[in-house]
């Protein structure tokens, strides 16, 4: 619906040309703005007020004095952040886990979508889809529970198998060597099936005539998969990849919070969990907010540039 339609629906008094037309149009459609009031109040209170609260990253915030009464310290918190060895470690952990997740997990949903497209038996296809979507709907706590059970050193399935082959049981959840692999694997277990949906949709949107034409030209199914399906979803792949890069500093806070413990802080503590531990655990509000702000700003820049690149390259973006 555009302005002319809005006008057309109230044909009696046409609104145009006069400078006050805009205000009139708004007044005539005031019902729409009334509908927006609750949403805007929500936005102001729960989204924009915390943005104002970010100011405490530039203070030595004291909860009794509030933002107005606390002492301003400029960029001192950020100096502390850059010099802190712990933050360096946390930053590296975040990048490592995130990059592992992208490199190892991003291609899987694409493969799943391509492979599913080759299945002609609808019943089989639907059953597989139902099963691989399911983990997406389980909470991280439940998934931690599942994997604590299956990986337990006292009779867990995986360690039984390792022992059966003559290996030593591994305590995955308290091992700095294996914890990151565990994080990446469980993230994959939860989301690869679900993430395939968008690629499945993209394949469904490919013109069927292309397949028929290729078949007549003698292309086998493998060729059709590689030369029609894959190029057909390439724009979607690139778009999803660019967007994924935008969240590189979010390595999965909730997931890691439900899985980790002090033993593996060294390899598992990421920015999100660090902010939580320092801020709410040690009550260092200002420093923790500075870390969070750093995270938000970098994330913001990444998403904006990702979207910019995607618009340049593909003429599509999220906005």
């Amino acid at each position, binding site marked *: 619906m555009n302005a002319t339609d809005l006008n057309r629906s109230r044909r009696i008094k046409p609104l145009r040309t006069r400078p006050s037309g805009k205000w009139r149009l708004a007044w005539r*459609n005031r019902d729409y703005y009334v509908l927006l009031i609750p949403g805007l109040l929500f936005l102001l209170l729960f989204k924009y007020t*915390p943005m104002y609260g970010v100011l405490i990253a530039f203070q030595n915030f004291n909860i009794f004095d509030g933002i107005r009464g606390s002492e301003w310290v400029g960029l001192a918190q950020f100096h502390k952040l850059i010099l802190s060895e712990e933050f360096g470690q946390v930053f590296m952990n975040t990048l490592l886990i995130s990059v592992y997740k992208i490199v190892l997990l991003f291609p899987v949903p694409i493969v799943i979508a391509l492979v599913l497209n080759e299945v002609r038996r609808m019943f089989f296809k639907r*059953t597989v889809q139902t099963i691989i979507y*399911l983990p997406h709907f389980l909470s991280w706590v439940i998934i931690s*529970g599942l994997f604590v059970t299956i990986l337990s050193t006292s009779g867990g399935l995986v360690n039984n198998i390792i022992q059966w082959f003559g290996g030593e049981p591994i305590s995955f959840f308290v091992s700095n060597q294996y914890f990151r692999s565990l994080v990446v694997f469980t993230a994959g277990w939860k989301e690869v099936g679900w993430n395939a949906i968008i690629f499945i949709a993209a394949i469904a949107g490919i013109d069927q005539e292309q397949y028929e034409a290729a078949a007549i030209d003698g292309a*086998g199914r493998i060729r059709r998969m590689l030369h029609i399906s894959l190029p057909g979803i390439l724009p979607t792949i690139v778009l999803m990849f660019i967007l994924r890069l935008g969240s590189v500093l979010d390595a999965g806070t909730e997931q890691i919070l439900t899985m980790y413990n002090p033993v593996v802080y060294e390899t598992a503590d990421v920015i999100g969990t660090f902010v939580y531990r320092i801020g709410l655990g040690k009550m260092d509000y200002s420093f923790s907010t500075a870390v969070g702000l750093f995270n938000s700003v970098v994330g913001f820049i990444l998403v904006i540039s990702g979207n910019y690149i995607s618009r340049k390259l593909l003429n599509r973006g999220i906005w």
Partner: protein
Amino acid sequence: MNKRTKGDLLLDISVYLFLIVLALVMLLPLANVFSKSVSEEWAIISGKVGILPIGFQLDTLKEVVSSAMFLRAFGISVGVTVVGTVLSIILTALTAYPLSKRNLPGISFLMVLFIFTMLFSGGLIPSYLLMRELHLINNLWVLILPGMISVFNMLVIKSYYESLPEALEESARIDGAKTYTVLFRIILPLSMPVLATIALFYAVGYWNDYFGPMIYINDTALKTLQLYLQDVVMDASAANVTNKSVDDLMNMSPEGIRAATVVASTVPILCVYPFVQKYFIKGVLIGSVKG
């Protein structure tokens, strides 16, 4: 064209093999934990339980499900989920409507206000301090209010509204319908599939939320199911689970209790899942294809 070449056969075999292995990987942890929750105690302790249960008993599950703490946490989660989902879907559906009228003066600016919150946020500590200020710590409303509108979900609904034929609205207007009548009598009823999908997403979000309760709820009496579950999973001592004396629990291992608690909290999702599945695929496609 219908002749199958060797390559096709090979492809078929690999396709089916790949998908079967994938499905098994997804099912294995679930099968294992389910088996542990119903297996005999000796079999769990000696580590024999694999995919299938060994022996069969429902005592552990019964014990877990009848514990006062589990029931209370379960009830709180149900309450938060129901109230949260209803409020969220109403608010989101109403907010999306004006925003779908792109040529209204000022709407594009308001749109930017919404989208900006997807890209930038104050972060954990400022949000926490705000909730403190609002006296929402240890108040169950804190689990609902800050999440009432997900801008992403709102955008999905908005793009659905935009896909509805304009003629519908125009003819209603010519018949004298005002904005609210159009919205409630025409737009919303036509949007049921997408609203159902988004409602499901909200419900899953409220039900599975762990971070929110962990930060804002420290009162043991207000623990949600996920918080309670985390206690049991990470520290499966029997005392956490029931208020019975140790003697009563002699025949239950932490392992078995942990498995039973996980199963008891998963079953509700498994029950609803098959019924809502067909909706969400449709709904997701509506949202994603438009990109």
